[in-house]
């Protein structure tokens, strides 16, 4: 059978669903080498005839094709244990399915959402469903084995946030921007607009900005005035990831932003900020100070987001562009070919 298998090419189809669009990436492997790849985008968050036709035009060439999809369930996450006894401390797994990673941490998702995905794509069939946390850990595999840091995957409708230290998951949370937006959208936008309007007059007067819950949380990080010891500042500098900064400068992050992207970036910032606040507050986790944040950007954030983290959370921000479809495809390849 292995001999017969080696005679065929292998086709990996990866699907990433974003808001009202779906990206389909097809990579073709022959003898474990990538020989070709194709990508198409469709204006649907489900599956339509064109997408089926596009996928089947490649999958019909070989019986060895694998269709993978990135899980976009709202009820997913990751926890820092593989022990079934300890899982309940973090999440009720009765309605979820989970997968242990490196015998150290576990990512989980809703069983019903998995069934929904399989039912939705039953015309083409699904072979792999990957968690964004798998994508994140794989994408930053060169960084998660280092000192503690926040690793964030930014998607159109969700944010996957995790904290790793020496390849060990400390904390993770999957944030659905739509759900939180419903309750906080207006308040958030008003606050941002207030800041912008006041800034236009005579600079930002921090005292005049009304302190909301998010702003209060900044107090937990300590007052800037408390940082009177210059040695502490030097310690911060030592934690900077010089190599990552170099790559980031060469990649570049868009400077110009529209009002829409500005709002979205601020929303993302507030969500991440709230999640980090939870990390500090939750007694389940050791509240170690987070200095570096690595962002895998799949949506195209602006430099404003970076500025928020630097100015308001005093974090070193490193943004890498990520092609989610390619990353999902790489996970599928590693499942099959290794």
């Amino acid at each position, binding site marked *: 059978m292995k001999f017969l298998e080696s005679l065929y090419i292998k086709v990996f189809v990866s699907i990433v669903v974003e808001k009202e669009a779906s990206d389909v990436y097809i990579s073709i492997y022959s003898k474990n080498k990538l020989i070709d790849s194709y990508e198409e985008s469709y204006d649907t968050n489900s599956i339509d005839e064109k997408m089926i036709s596009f996928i089947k035009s490649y999958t019909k060439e070989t*019986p060895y094709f694998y269709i993978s999809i990135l899980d976009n369930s709202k009820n997913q996450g990751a926890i820092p244990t593989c022990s079934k006894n300890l899982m309940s401390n973090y999440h009720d797994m009765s309605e979820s399915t989970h997968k242990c*990673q490196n015998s150290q941490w576990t990512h989980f998702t809703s069983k019903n959402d998995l069934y929904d995905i399989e039912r939705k794509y039953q015309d083409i069939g699904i072979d792999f*469903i990957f968690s964004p946390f798998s994508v994140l850990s*794989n994408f930053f595999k060169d960084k998660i084995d280092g000192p503690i840091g926040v690793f964030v995957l930014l998607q159109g409708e969700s944010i996957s946030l995790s904290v790793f230290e020496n390849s060990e998951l400390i904390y993770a949370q999957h944030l659905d921007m739509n759900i939180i937006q419903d309750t906080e959208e207006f308040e958030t936008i008003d606050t941002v607009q207030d800041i912008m309007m006041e800034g236009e007059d005579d600079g930002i007067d921090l005292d005049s900005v009304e302190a909301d819950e998010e702003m209060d949380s900044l107090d937990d990080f300590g007052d800037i005035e408390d940082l009177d010891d210059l040695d502490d500042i030097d310690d911060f500098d030592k934690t900077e990831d010089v190599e990552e900064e170099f790559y980031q400068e060469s990649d570049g992050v868009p400077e110009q932003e529209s009002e829409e992207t500005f709002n979205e970036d601020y929303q993302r910032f507030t969500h991440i900020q709230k999640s980090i606040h939870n990390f500090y507050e939750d007694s389940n986790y050791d509240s170690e100070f987070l200095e570096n944040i690595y962002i895998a950007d799949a949506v195209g954030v602006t430099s404003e987001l970076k500025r928020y983290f630097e100015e308001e959370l005093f974090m070193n921000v490193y943004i890498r562009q990520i092609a989610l479809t390619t990353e999902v495809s790489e996970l599928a390849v590693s499942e099959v070919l290794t």
Partner: protein
Amino acid sequence: MKYSYIAPRTKTVFTPEVKLMLTFFSITIFMLLSTYAFLLFKEYTFLSDLKSIQKSQSQLQTDLSKMKDDIVFIQKENDLAKSIQTKNLVLKDSITNLFDLVPQRITLSQAKLDTNSLVLYGITPNKDIYNFMLGAPLRSIFHRTYSSFYPVGNGWLRFVSTNYTDDDLPTLEGEADNEN
């Protein structure tokens, strides 16, 4: 599975299309093999029949040859029989002629007819009657004729006439020997 929540579907090269193709190939190969086996069987039976026929042919040829020999032998026998018949007829005629030769006055008591000889025993009143009436014709028929007389009590003579011919008549045994 290291990362995925679900395991991939089983992949096999035996897709429905391949299965259909293999089915057709299998049927075709089966039919070809069946035909080949049938042809092998027919060839075997043909060769077997051929051997049988060749054996039969050989037997028939042997029989034919034997029959030809028999025919030749029978023909020769027929010829011989005809020859003998002819000779017998000739002999019969000769005997008839012989008894016709014997005059009224001479009485034959015994006659020995051999292949190339004739021995006559009888009584004659005298030698002249014998010489003129019987000896003369005998001499004309046979190449060598010998006569001897001895007297009987009443004056008559008992005679013994031995006659030979030099031309040997063919005999059956002699013919058979010549054939071989």
